[in-house]
């Protein structure tokens, strides 16, 4: 089960609200390569992993992604908190404001609401881990695009850089887990008895 710690993984202290940046950054909250999708992807896939290392890494990274979700939510909140509706609209967030005010709601930068179609759990550990590796790279690429768009505000850049670095570390860990799973699946199987025929007979 989970417990909550009342501290952000990395500090978020943004002095100047900027709803335009919030509109872009919210994609890492509820977008296709965002932290919500990442967390649910890993926490859903962990059940089917064939070895302890893969289960552990999906469990522990899936948990860390929830801390990242909180950080991205904090960035979006601080960028929009106290901003007047006129400024919100000017930033292109009029549609968002209509339905959500300045609450933090999981949508992509284009305004599409979060959907489980963003994640996969394929019933195949190799396919799942390859998906996770791609997801980490896509998230890194997204953070790099956000960093390009947020160059003027060091308060926003700093946590984004931290989050980008975490994607790289997670990619590394998933690569190691994938290698372990591949080795395990390639092992020669040694049967003490031919159980499969017995199971067939029993099921008749």
């Amino acid at each position: 089960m989970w417990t909550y710690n009342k501290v952000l993984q990395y500090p978020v202290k943004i002095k100047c609200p900027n709803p335009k940046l919030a509109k872009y950054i919210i994609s890492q909250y509820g977008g296709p390569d965002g932290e919500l999708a990442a967390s649910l992807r890993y926490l859903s896939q962990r059940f089917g992993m064939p070895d302890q290392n893969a289960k552990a890494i999906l469990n522990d990274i899936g948990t860390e992604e929830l801390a990242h979700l909180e950080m991205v939510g904090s960035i979006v909140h601080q960028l929009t908190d106290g901003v007047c509706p006129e400024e919100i609209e000017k930033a292109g967030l009029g549609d968002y404001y209509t339905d959500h005010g300045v609450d933090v709601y999981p949508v992509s930068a284009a305004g599409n609401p979060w959907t489980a179609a963003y994640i996969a759990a394929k019933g195949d550990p190799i396919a799942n881990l390859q998906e996770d590796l791609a997801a980490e790279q896509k998230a890194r690429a997204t953070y790099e695009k956000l960093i390009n768009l947020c160059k003027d505000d060091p308060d926003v850049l700093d946590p984004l850089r931290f989050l980008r670095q975490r994607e790289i570390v997670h990619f590394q860990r998933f690569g190691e887990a994938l290698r372990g799973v591949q080795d395990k699946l390639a092992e020669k199987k040694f049967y003490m008895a031919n159980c499969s025929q017995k199971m067939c007979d029993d099921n008749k």
Partner: protein
Amino acid sequence: MLEKENRNCNCGCNNNYMMNNNSNMMINNNDYPNTNTMSAGIGNNNENGNCCGKPGCAPKVPMYSFEFTNIDSEDTCEEKEMTREEMLNQIRALDFAVVELAEYLDTHEDDQKALCLHKEYATQLKELKDKYQKVYGPLSIYFPCNKWRWLEEPWPWERGNY
């Protein structure tokens, strides 16, 4: 309705904030009347609900009523150490008590009785988890170990696990 009740625990623990004699609290009182209701004292007017962290003053968190297959029936004296499964069930019960009290306190922050119960169960939970993890390995990644034992035990979603 709540306002009419006496929600003070009358134990003086709030007058004396740094009460040190609570540090080794143990519940020895086995005949406390409310052993099977976790919500004892919360939302009802419980005359016995003085909770100050002193021995015997908080309702004992009940053991889950599972049938334990690994309990030796001859070893049921009180001095017997808890089995691993009993310890985990006790941790579960204390954890749930803390969660329930915390959620209640979020909307009733001035309720002294609930606050005292929270303090007592949170302390018991911390001590029991520490004791468990020293023997059986980590319950979370935050427990320091000399050897990485996080991978040793089956995961909680796996059949045959606790």
